[in-house]
């Protein structure tokens, strides 16, 4: 188990925790912010697995575009889940 | 000469990672969002800049790209920290009870907006 494996394990556990948080929380804006963290960790994991094309697509689409679309949807609906 | 360059690069990388860690520690430990901004942007900016400069010195062929990266960090990080500070003030995030000065209260531009 090298140090890089340890880092990957930490990142995967963080990703799982973030996904659980997104499902459980009632504040949808917080869910959007934590979704940005999930895409960040996914980009690092693709990078560590040496898939730079996938990492760059993940960074471009998931970090910027998805967040903007979610925010517009939130603006048109409610911020807090009933 | 080359050994000296590698030594400088290693030192810069060490300083960079240390400051990145300290910035994250500040984000974790400080009491409210305005204090967290201090650590979360200034310290990590210095850390990332010195780490990238160290990597650029360790591999001199990458130096131009590393300089472009540093320019991007220098241009984007202050703007995002300003936006976060303004957004949290406008959305009514209260100051920590230990804070003593709030100059923004006196200006009209600071009133306003959404919900925290």
């Amino acid at each position, binding site marked *: 188990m090298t140090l890089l494996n340890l880092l990957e394990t930490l990142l995967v556990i963080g990703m799982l925790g973030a996904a659980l948080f997104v499902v459980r929380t009632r504040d949808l804006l917080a869910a959007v912010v934590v979704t940005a963290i999930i895409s960040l960790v996914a980009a690092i994991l693709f990078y560590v697995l040496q898939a730079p*094309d996938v*990492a760059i697509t993940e960074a*471009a689409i998931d970090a910027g*575009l998805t967040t*903007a679309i979610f925010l*517009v949807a939130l603006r048109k609906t409610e911020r807090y889940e009933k | 000469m080359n050994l000296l360059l590698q030594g400088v690069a290693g030192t810069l990388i060490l300083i960079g990672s240390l400051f990145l860690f300290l910035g994250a520690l500040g984000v974790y430990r400080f009491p409210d969002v305005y204090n967290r901004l201090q650590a979360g942007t200034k310290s990590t900016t210095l850390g990332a800049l010195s780490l990238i400069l160290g990597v650029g010195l360790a591999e001199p062929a990458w130096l131009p790209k590393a300089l472009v990266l540093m320019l991007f960090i220098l241009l984007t990080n*202050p703007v995002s920290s300003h936006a976060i500070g*303004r957004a949290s003030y406008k959305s009514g995030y209260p100051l920590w009870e230990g804070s003593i000065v709030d100059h923004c209260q006196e200006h009209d531009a600071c009133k306003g907006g959404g919900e925290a």
Partner: protein
Amino acid sequence: MTRRVLAILLLLILAVALYQALARVPFGTDRMAVSRYYLDHGVQDLGGVNIVTSVVVLYRGFDTLGEVTVLFLAATGLGALLHGLALHDEKRRRTKTPPSLIMRTATRILFPLILLLGAYVFVHGHLTPGGGFPGGVVVALAYLLGFLAHDHWRVNHRAVRWIEGLAGMTYVIIGLLGLYLAGSFLANFLPPGTPGRLFSAGIIPLIYITIGFKVGSEMTGLLSEMKEITE
């Protein structure tokens, strides 16, 4: 309570099944002859250093045309949906916070830089990671930055439609040129050149430039529709 137990049981069964299925597949070893062929012959045949883009554009170019079509349909459908939504909007807000001076000034500096970054990504698709789709999205995000920091910023919808249509048409015309000159649709009719140079790898840069323009204009049009419904 029973539903929760059932859900956990279902998850456990799925986990055991997945484990049983994947335990026999060794991780990290390649069993596919096709990918081995691409890795061995891709650089000499086509001249693209980045094998992934060679596969996406040349070996599997027809699939990429399908992907672009799917993206076009999705953007058109979403645009139609949003256009109808703007008419029946009851939840308008009274005041909007104007963007701050720092944000506006920084956007004026950063907007051309990010546009340039997007163009770099899709022009260098055969040399560095990335390609048409991420490059187009980066271009669209530069416009998103402009929409965020300037309240009265607009794009010309007619021009966006025209760019999108022209880019799609150019893609198909390049494919038909391949059919005419080299015998099959989307065939590589330009010489591979020296691997590692900007002008190499046949038609990969041309196709990626058209894809970049197409994706960028589509996403920009979408974001601008979204900006209009939030007003």
